[in-house]
């Protein structure tokens, strides 16, 4: 069971990455508006000039 001494820190490292990603996404405003982006993908993106995003 000594493997636990390695696996638990590894698991916690994975958690840390997940939490970090969540914090980053929240601060970038990804959760500010949960409705519009779902509607935005319905749009055809074929026409029009290149839009720098």
């Amino acid at each position, binding site marked *: 069971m000594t493997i636990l001494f390695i696996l638990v820190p590894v698991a916690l490292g994975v958690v840390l990455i997940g939490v970090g990603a969540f914090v980053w996404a929240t601060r970038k*405003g990804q959760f*500010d508006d949960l409705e*519009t982006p779902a509607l935005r993908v319905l749009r055809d993106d074929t026409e029009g000039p290149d839009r720098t995003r």
Partner: protein
Amino acid sequence: MSPAVAEPTLAGVDCSHCGLPVLPGDIAPEAGQQFCCSGCRTAWALISASGLSAYYESDDRRGAPVRLSGRRYDEFDHPAFHRLYVQAIGGGLLEAELYLQGVHCASCVWLVEQVPLVIPGAVRAELNVPRSLARVQWDPALTSLAAIARFLEQLGYPSHPFRGGRADQRRRAEDRAMLVRIGVSGAIAINVMTVALALYAGWFGAMEPGYVRYFRWISLGLTVPAIAWPGRVFFTSAWGALRARRVHMDVPIAIALGAGFARGAVNTVTDAGPIYFDGVVTLIFLLLVGRYLQQRAQRAAADAAELLHGLTPSTARLVEGDSIDEVPSESLVPGAVVEVRAGDPIPTDGQIVDGRSNVDRSLLTGESMPVSVEPGDMVYAGTTNTGATIRVRVTEAGEATRLGRLLVELEAAMGRRAPVVQTADRLAGWFVAAVLILAGLTYLVWHRIDPTVALDHAIALLIVTCPCALALATPLTMTVAVGRAAKAGILIRGADALEILARPATMLLDKTGTLTEGRLQLMAWEGDEQLKPAILALEAHSNHPVARAFESAWPTEPRALATGARQTLGGGVTGSVDGVDFAVGAPAFVLALALDPDHLAQSVPADLTPVLVAAAGIVRGAAGFGDPIRPDSAAAVASLRRLGWRIGILSGDAPSVVAATAESLGVSAADARGGATPEAKVAEVERRLAAGPVVMVGDGVNDAPAIGRASVGIGVRGGAEACLAAADVFLARSGLTPLVALIAGSERTLRVIRRTIAVSVGYNIIGAGLAVTGVINPLIAAIMMPVSSVTVILMAWRSETFRTKP
């Protein structure tokens, strides 16, 4: 921003079905028909296939496809406007947020975000549907905000500058911080729980002490950031309360968290005794979730500056020499002269320098009749000019206006309102403290009886009494109740208001617009039928509310033709119909022109506003106008009485009118007060607050401070924005029937909350009893614990709080 920039070309192609311009990307060069969207293409195909193409030949169909206001939006390019709403974002680009009317769906997102394809110089347009906000970026060298706004209006979205920018940013930052805290504490809670599970499981199968120590240290390592980051809000708020020498619900929570963590940390280091980390982190997580649910329910915070903008027009017509410019209202300074056209709201406080008119002050004072004004009279921001065009010299602008001061007063009043401490929050904190003490005692007592099981029993107690269910019961039940109520047309902002509304107290109702319809109607008519066409003919030349009331009272009456009709402000209308001279107006005005041999002037009931009609110098008819009581008011007042409420009327209208209303609704004269200014309404609410909770129901700005001050404020449909922002509850269906539903629903909600709390406390007491006496071990406790949470969640979900069908 050069005005020489050309309008965006729409390629001059109109949709064959609806007549709207077709976007360049949608033009099919070879096709005979052009369509702006596939919906129109389908409609056209259907109509043509059915042989109904003649529809497209009919003239009236070719009317304006979308109602356009024809606004030029020139004020959007005014330097003052740019100072207020436009930011430079680098790269020579400018950015502004516009509030768009009429945004609902996916096609709106599509349409609005096409702006950069159509307008050269528009760089980016992004729409937030739930908030109807479009963020646009453009290059000032190529186009202007006015051009973008004009295009948006052509698409059918009239735009307004979004004023709440700063408050909105603050709120957004708060929201994000809260979400981050929940996410972090949730991740930590799950991991600490997993580790705890391993420890509990290891309790039976003799886990090696080395592993036990290892897991305990990991729990400690995980709990430190949970306390230091998401959990810190409880400590800072508890410390703030203690420094102000007050105790609120965060104090026991902070004590429980702090004590649990400290004891657990000491026990980890000394390698003996229970660690409380799983309970501590779960409590942090669940309390934060409960708080987030509540915070989301009370979103639209009342910010005085924001409210002021909602009530005053965004632009004013500034008179400079011979020219009149549309400028943002914020840019007006005392001394400037503005023109206010008939029907427009007045942007600032000021003195009339030119023109005579009527001003509807109901928003500010609650008076049901407009007052006549002439040069030299003061007019106030927030009132509406209903008569003729006037020019006003600005005396106070912005927050210095009477309306602005009223809103500042409103904000102060809301600040003075004592926060409602929720039963469950209060309970949860003390509950946790009690459990910790009990666990300590259990350990000590069992240590004397049998040291080997002491720890077992203390841990079992801690697990089985985890207050998750208790912390969730109230926010969850209320969130469910608020959702149900919203479906029934009752929008509840401060969910804690439900707790006050559930117990009978004093309820004060505004009269104009709340108990009554809030608009003038013909209530009594004495006179000949033959007079009606002539009256309607004359009133067609008046814009006084009496004229509208005549028209809505006799909609099917034929209308004669009046010649030489002339309106005298504050008097009435004169003119001739079929060669007979007519006069319609206030008694003083008509009696100066005609005789009243039949004493018709006395036939109008005293609580109505009289209007006399004279033909050829003789008074032939008398009409009485009033603001009729809503049909359901009497029944609603009666049912509220039956529920044990004390009902009072608090109105700004004339005392005699208020007394008559009170009498017909069965409200005692002692509880009906008329002639109350907004300030007097606050004083009255404060006086009654001494005797217990006061609920204020109203619709106008004049009620807003009182609504803000009352224990619970309720706004009714059609009310002013300030009133709605101050109110905890907004009734979206007209009439007072929803008020009864609200009270009954609140009672049921509180009953459900009591039931869930009773279940979770009872469950915990039984569990604690079993644990203290050593009947259950930690593993069984760990299985029992979530059962109570699930029970509470199911009870809250299934509860019959508000009925969606009335």
